[in-house]
């Protein structure tokens, strides 16, 4: 049994379903990447895994435990961390406070983690007193990922973490994600920088119209000419 197992998720926002029996799973300490066209339902699937979307059918288990009915806060307490695609910072709080909020459920000393985040994203250290709402798009994205890392989650879910960040930061970020995974944390992420992402992925999902279209290792997907052509931009 995988660490995270979201099976057969079906559901949507209103009348029409967006997800049609979508299945995702991640092993402990591994990286799973979801790619797919815009509007495929990738973000929706992430929300569903996190309990932010009512499911009409399907189930989510974490570490063997059924969490389908848990609220998002309870999932956070169980060790899930999430960086949404949009609105992922607290705009009128300073960068430092944003990170503190990431550590909200922790009752131990989180200063070491914060130092690590600042190491990873040095610019944030300079801007620690500035409100997150006044940061540039890419800086904001860094705050968002940093906030999630502060939770020290067991499963980290990232919805397009590299959108809008510069190549150098993107490299760093992927690097860091590998490192994080190595410490035993499972990672589930959506990426449009698909080639780089699949490169580091243990498992890749191609989602289209709310369904799993292809599932394989990252390398295998990259090697599949059909996948490359239709989904990865040649």
């Amino acid at each position, binding site marked *: 049994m995988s660490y995270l197992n979201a099976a057969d998720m079906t559901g949507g926002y209103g009348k029409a379903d967006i997800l049609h029996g979508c299945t995702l799973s991640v092993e402990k300490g591994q990286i799973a990447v979801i790619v797919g*066209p*815009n509007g495929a339902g990738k973000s929706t699937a992430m929300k569903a895994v996190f309990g932010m979307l009512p499911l009409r059918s399907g189930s989510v288990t974490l570490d063997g435990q059924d969490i389908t009915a848990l609220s998002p806060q309870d999932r956070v307490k169980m060790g899930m961390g999430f960086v949404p695609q949009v609105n992922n910072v607290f705009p009128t709080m300073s960068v430092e406070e944003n990170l503190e909020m990431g550590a909200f459920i922790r009752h131990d000393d989180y200063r070491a983690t914060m130092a690590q985040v600042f190491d990873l994203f040095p610019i944030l250290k300079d801007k620690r007193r500035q409100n997150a709402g006044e940061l540039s798009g*890419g800086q904001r994205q860094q705050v968002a990922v940093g906030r999630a890392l502060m939770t020290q989650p067991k499963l980290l879910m990232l919805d397009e973490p590299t959108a*809008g960040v*510069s*190549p*150098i930061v*993107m490299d760093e970020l992927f*690097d860091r994600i*590998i490192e994080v995974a190595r410490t035993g944390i499972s990672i589930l992420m959506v990426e449009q920088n698909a080639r780089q992402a699949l490169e580091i992925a243990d498992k890749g999902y191609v989602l289209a119209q709310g369904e799993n279209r292809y599932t394989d290792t990252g390398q295998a997907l990259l090697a599949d000419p059909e996948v490359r052509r239709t989904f990865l931009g040649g």
Partner: protein
Amino acid sequence: MIRVENLVKSFGGFRAVDGASLEIAKGSITGLIGPNGAGKSTLFNVIAGVHEPTSGRVTMDGEDITGLKPHELFHKGLLRTFQVAHEFPSLTVRENLMMVPSQQSGETLLNTLIGRKRIRDEEAALLAKADEVLDFLTISHLRDEKAGNLSGGQKKLLELGRTMMVDAKIVFLDEVGAGVNRTLLNTIGDAIVRLNRERGYTFCVIEHDMDFIGRLCDPVIVMAEGHVLAEGSAAHIMENEAVIEAYLGTGLKNKTKEAAQ
């Protein structure tokens, strides 16, 4: 076409744009890259009239356009998209497009009472045009959806689509690519090239995807810490040491290989 001279924009004490001077040639697709926080979006915002510059000058075809209001710039043929999509959430996708053209006679109150025939004709034309754009962007199926319900990438497309509704002279694109599927991004890239060739649009493109920049843009301007760091052809820029250090990095591939070992 657009000339920026010694532009400074500060927020409180912080100079987000710090003496930037650059030029965007008519008919070019100019790339604008630089590390996060380099001041690219701020520069766009100043040019597009969202922010007042602290000092400096912007001219368009020799005419001083510093400090003009966004809607005035629109009428001069200067359009822009936003890094964070700014759709009209309660309008349908189609309406989002149809509202763009200016001087619609139906926008004058008096005409809505007495010029109804003319409005009908104009609307029909607009509708056809909007549908054409939607087809082009592969989101025709969403035409009657409220724009607020679109996915992140779809909003980006809509953002681009709006610039296609009128005959622009110059279009500023702030990270159209972020969050857009690469296959689609290629299509967008083709569209940009086509608009550039066929309709003579000038483009200024902010983007972090170097493939995209490399394929499309000439010249490429690199910004860092509020000013211009380098300028040249894409290939040229990618060799530039300073640019590599500040922005490009040494590349992911080497590292992943290291990691694998």
